[in-house]
């Protein structure tokens, strides 16, 4: 069928994307099955189909974000499997992934996010500013320009995503469900925006998927997909003709294979009977303030048991906040709410069991399979163990999840994830359901099935349903609806009544009518863009500023792109001052702790004596030991059992046994033996103790000998003059403090950079690396720069602390030390990247960084034992690890008064480490998703 379609296409039309025999597997699951498709240029092309049929997979392949496994994809005249073509073509391409604001940076503001993309595509500042202003006006985001992206509502995030995609005037715009979760007004405006952009730039091709069938009619050309294959392609009219149906929604259903169609039937809404007037949900003057911002403003409503109550409103109007207050997730600033007549109390577990809640953001465990998620929630809601299995099966069957029951949610498309969330919310058969946009992103067939389930629950089991939605056909099925705007409820009532009040025949118009009235009343807080209707056609660029996007010559690094990543990281650091503070103050604190705490000077060693002689001679021997500054005497030992016990407990480092008759034998000159036991549990300490004891013993012997009448004054054969160089007082601090600088400058910067990349992976913004012109090296260097600066600041503070607080003089070349520090922190930050290359979760990155830096830095780099004395693999690691070399330079410049020439070999090692580490990082970083 598909092939006919392609051939029917008028000849002479340019093709922007050609997909030939493309298949894609995720593990064993076939997501795309030999798809072939020619997408005409200069058109708005829609991709429609149920959830999980491979729409997003196809988009990610076309955009170059994912590696092509099988088949061939040509985009804008070149093969997307070819890295060179991808690099050439990506400035002409824009890709907005599915999921609300997935490729955005949540801590960055609206304007900073757009700015980032502008920089990535190499716009000049004036041009960028103009474009951003245009886009913000066109999308109505202008009033929110300084709000962090993470604090935007779902629909506003979608708009921001679109702005980011449009900033560089792409020739091909790929939008994956851009209108999912967007309110009707904004959706209407979104389409106007797309139309205006197109009228300004007729050459641009738009490839878009959508879950809204009413939008399908707006496309120039439609592609219907099912189960990884194409069903049909053509203009909406052609599709209607072919299927012989009146609406596209019906047409799509008609195009479905026979067995799928059988599952679908129209939603039946029986009248509500047997109202008993019991109030299930009541809210009185419910208010929520975030600082000055009033998110929900004195909202009052009352919902009866068994009622389906719809909550409508523009994005960011306070629907979600209201729902969170009802569930007790957010404490109300003012007013109160009651569920089942009980005041909402976040500690009330009994009420929680009667409520099922589904939040707007997916909030299930992505590490658990669908079955495990369902079972876990059933358990937690105290479903009897014997019923759980059957209940899970039933829910899976009901929500069409049986086929993916053992898949993990993060491998599922949005629509299926939504179904899972809904199934989870219902698994314990709650008496009340609070559902925040449960059907957004879900295909029409499944949505109807959802609603049938909800209606049955409400009508048969008297389940109260409080639901928010952007679909007007869903709102029509509610018993009553409330329309919210800017934190206030504008109007409540039955859908038919509201339509009658406005004198319109559909709810969409009624909705927009009410909103326009509200906004005309001076309310401009909403993200809507009514004003923009009056603005001239949006051309993508302001006419005054020509769109000159000059792609930089191939193979050369582009500083602007690099710096755009630097800016994102720097802004992220600034937004999260705790992180920078922790890095700086924390390392100073550690310097103190470790600098003062670690000491190689072993003294105050504990010892006790088992004196079986008890004479003045034996006391004299003990005094000799007790009098030295190295030893502290504990209570004497009575017998061998006590000696054993006290040594085992670790109380004594040394135990002496003086035999009976010690004085007598000593006087006679017969041989006596003093027993000394050293606790060998800490070998280093034991060695020191042994050394001390030997020394003191020898001293005592000499003393005894000299006191003996007639003995010659004892004189050695020679003298050994020991000079402790560089650290004449043999103070630990001189050794430890410079070493500590080296260690801290490894641990902290590497932790920062490792998390910076893995966080991108976990949050999804890594896709910007995949589909924009930024190269891997630019990406890494850009991210690295702020952390290098931070680390250098850290270095200066630590050095200052060493010189002032610890009084370790910096005797050598400051320049050499600083140069070495710079090279070293580049290596340390690169080390973090290296760790991030083979970790996918932030947990693994944290643990990996701790494991792979703490051990080598503290133990193999010569802080305590010189590298040359190490054994085995540790010695090899010590020689390769940058810390060892920097430590040598640190100690050399601090204590040995060394200069540049003296530490050349260590410097050379640091210089070499930089390209080696960075090269490894670039090699291990992927420019496409596997």
């Amino acid at each position, binding site marked *: 069928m598909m092939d006919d379609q392609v051939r029917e296409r008028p000849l002479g039309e340019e093709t922007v994307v050609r997909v030939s025999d493309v298949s894609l597997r995720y593990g064993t699951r076939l997501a795309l099955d030999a798809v072939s498709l020619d997408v005409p240029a200069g058109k708005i092309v829609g991709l429609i189909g149920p959830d999980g049929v491979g729409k997003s997979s196809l988009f990610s392949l076309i955009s170059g974000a994912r590696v092509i496994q099988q088949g061939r994809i040509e985009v804008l005249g070149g093969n997307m499997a070819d890295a060179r073509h991808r690099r050439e073509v990506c400035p002409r391409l824009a890709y907005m992934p599915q999921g609300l604001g997935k490729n955005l940076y949540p801590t960055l503001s609206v304007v900073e996010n757009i700015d980032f993309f502008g920089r990535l595509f190499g716009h000049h500042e004036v041009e960028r500013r103009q474009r951003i202003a245009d886009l913000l006006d066109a999308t109505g985001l202008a009033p929110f320009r300084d709000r962090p992206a993470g604090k935007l509502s779902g629909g506003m995030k979608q708009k921001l995503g679109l702005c980011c995609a449009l900033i560089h005037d792409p020739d091909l715009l790929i939008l994956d469900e851009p209108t999912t979760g967007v309110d009707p007004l904004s959706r209407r405006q979104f389409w106007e925006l797309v139309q205006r952009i197109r009228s300004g730039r007729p050459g641009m091709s738009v490839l878009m998927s959508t879950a809204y069938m009413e939008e399908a009619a707006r496309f120039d050309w439609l592609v219907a997909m099912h189960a990884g294959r194409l069903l049909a392609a053509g203009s909406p009219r052609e599709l209607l003709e072919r299927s012989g149906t009146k609406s596209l929604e019906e047409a799509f259903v008609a195009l479905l294979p026979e067995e799928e169609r059988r599952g679908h039937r129209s939603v039946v809404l029986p009248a509500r009977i047997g109202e008993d007037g019991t109030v299930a949900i009541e809210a009185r003057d419910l208010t929520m303030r975030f600082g000055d911002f009033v998110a929900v403003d004195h909202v009052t409503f009352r919902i009866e048991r068994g009622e389906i109550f719809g909550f409508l409103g523009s994005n960011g109007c306070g629907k979600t906040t209201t729902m969170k207050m009802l569930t*007790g997730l957010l404490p109300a600033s003012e007013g109160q709410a009651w569920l089942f007549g009980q005041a909402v109390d976040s500690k009330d577990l009994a009420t929680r069991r009667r409520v099922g809640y589904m939040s707007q953001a997916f909030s299930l465990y992505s590490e658990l399979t669908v079955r495990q998620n369902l079972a876990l929630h059933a358990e937690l809601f105290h479903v009897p163990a014997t019923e759980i299995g059957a209940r899970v099966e039933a829910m899976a069957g009901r929500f069409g999840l049986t086929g993916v029951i053992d898949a993990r949610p993060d491998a599922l498309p949005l629509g299926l994830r939504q179904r899972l969330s809904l199934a989870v919310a219902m698994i314990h058969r709650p008496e009340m359901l609070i559902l925040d946009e449960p059907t957004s992103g879900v295909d029409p067939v499944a949505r109807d099935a959802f609603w049938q389930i909800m209606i049955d629950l409400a009508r048969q089991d008297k389940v109260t349903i409080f639901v928010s939605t952007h679909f007007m056909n869903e709102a029509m099925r509610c018993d009553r609806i409330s329309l919210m705007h800017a934190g206030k409820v504008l109007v409540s009532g039955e859908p038919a009544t509201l339509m009658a009040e406005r004198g319109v025949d559909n709810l969409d118009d009624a909705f927009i009518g009410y909103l326009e009235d509200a906004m005309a009343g001076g309310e401009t807080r909403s993200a809507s863009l009514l004003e923009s209707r009056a603005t001239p056609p949006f051309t993508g660029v302001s006419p005054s500023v020509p769109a000159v996007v000059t792609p930089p010559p191939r193979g050369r690094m582009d500083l602007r792109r690099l710096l755009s990543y630097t800016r994102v990281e720097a802004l992220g650091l600034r937004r999260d001052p705790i992180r920078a503070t922790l890095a700086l103050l924390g390392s100073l604190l550690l310097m103190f702790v470790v600098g003062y705490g670690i000491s190689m000077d072993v003294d105050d060693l504990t010892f006790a004596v088992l004196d079986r002689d008890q004479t003045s001679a034996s006391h004299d021997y003990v005094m000799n030991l007790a009098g030295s500054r190295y030893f502290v005497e504990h209570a004497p030992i009575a017998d061998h059992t006590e000696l054993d016990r006290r040594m085992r407990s670790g109380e004594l480092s040394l135990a002496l046994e003086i035999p009976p008759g010690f004085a007598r034998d000593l006087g006679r000159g017969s*041989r006596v033996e003093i027993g000394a036991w050293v606790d060998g549990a800490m070998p280093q300490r034991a060695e020191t103790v042994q050394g001390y004891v030997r020394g003191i013993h020898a001293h005592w012997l000499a003393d005894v000998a000299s006191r003996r009448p007639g003995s010659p004054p004892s004189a050695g054969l020679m003298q050994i003059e020991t000079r402790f160089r560089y650290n004449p007082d043999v103070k630990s601090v001189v050794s430890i403090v410079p070493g500590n600088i080296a260690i801290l400058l490894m641990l902290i910067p590497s932790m920062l950079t490792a998390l910076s990349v893995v966080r991108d992976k976990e949050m999804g913004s890594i896709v910007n690396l995949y589909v924009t012109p930024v190269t891997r090296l630019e990406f890494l260097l850009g991210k690295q720069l702020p952390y290098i600066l931070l680390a250098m600041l850290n270095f200066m503070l630590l050095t200052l602390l060493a010189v002032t607080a610890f009084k370790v003089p910096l005797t050598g070349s400051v320049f050499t030390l600083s140069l070495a520090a710079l090279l070293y922190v580049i290596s340390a930050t690169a080390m973090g990247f290296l760790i991030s290359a083979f970790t996918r979760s932030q947990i693994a990155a944290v643990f990996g960084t701790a494991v792979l830096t703490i051990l080598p830095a503290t133990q193999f780099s010569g802080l305590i034992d010189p590298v040359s004395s190490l054994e085995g693999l540790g010695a090899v690691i010590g020689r390769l690890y940058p810390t060892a070399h920097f430590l040598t330079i640190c100690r050399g410049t601090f204590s040995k008064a060394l200069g540049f020439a003296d530490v050349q070999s260590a410097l050379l090692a640091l210089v070499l480490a930089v390209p080696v580490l960075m090269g490894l990082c670039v090699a291990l970083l992927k420019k496409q998703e596997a």
Partner: protein
Amino acid sequence: MRVANILQLGIKELRSLARDSRLLILIVYSFTVAIYVGATAMPSTLNKAPIAIVDEDQSPLSLRLAGSFYPPHFLAPALIPHAAMDEGMDAGLFTFALNIPPEFQRDLLAGRVPTIQLNVDATRMSQAFIGSGYIQTILNDEVKAFALRYRAGTAPPVDLALRARFNPSLTQTWFGAVMQIINNVTMLSLVLTGAALIRERERGTIEHLLVMPVTPLEIMLSKVWPMGLVVLAACAFALLFIVEGLLKMPIEGSLALFFAGTALHLFASTSLGIFLATVARSMPQFGLLLVLVLLPLQMLSGGATPRESMPEFVQTVMLAAPTTHFVSLSQAILYRGAGLEVVWPQFISLAAIGATFFGVALARLRKTIGLMV
């Protein structure tokens, strides 16, 4: 409190852990390879100390002295001219440089008490101290033996029978291996519990927990037990197969007692992990906080250097750290074969610290969990 909830949520944690293959690899690495490498890298106290000799005498005695330094305590001495000495020490090529003056042997035999100069790089604390002691003993012995052929000597009247207990040959590997395990136990338990909580927060799953009939106590316990169990298992594996099996260290005391102590320590450290996670707002903050907490715990608990050589103040403060007691009870049980009658104070301290940490962390979790949404 429902035990079933804690059990189910805990199993969920174990499943998440099992899914993160990279993390598992890192855990296995840190309890096998890292322990082995860490333990075997540590030199016995004086190992392969680099030494240089400037022999300006070139006499039989001076040659004999040069020949008395050999592995494993010393690297074969580098014989260098006087001029190269300073440079070599500056570059850190050797820790010791021995300067035997001209006419050393002649002066010695003539009883003129010549002076030998020993230069020590005192920035290398560990070697500097013990090594210079070794060198002095060796020099004295050699010179004495040499001189004995010319002068009569007497044996000392009192012998000192010096014996090391618990680790007679003072094998550093034994010490290093156990300390490495202790460090990793603390690190892993902090990371796993803390990050598990932060992850719930970052992925938004905490919101789901909060609308379910689950209490903060259950949430916390469901992180403490599985993570504690994983770490305990890893610790047992490392002790039995790496330390006892591969490194052939004899374990003196009762393993059951040691694992009981480890479990108590884990109670405290996992609670600490939860506490850190309630303080940090994101994983990067947690990562930094972790380094800040972990390093002092590792360096100052008596596992790296002896407690008694730390300043009084540090010793006192570190009594509040679970690792201090854990290190002390591990050394007592594993090396010295101590029983409960000896280590009960450490057990009580750990239990008290654990209970306090747990209580504080729980209070903090209760207070902040609502703000994590």
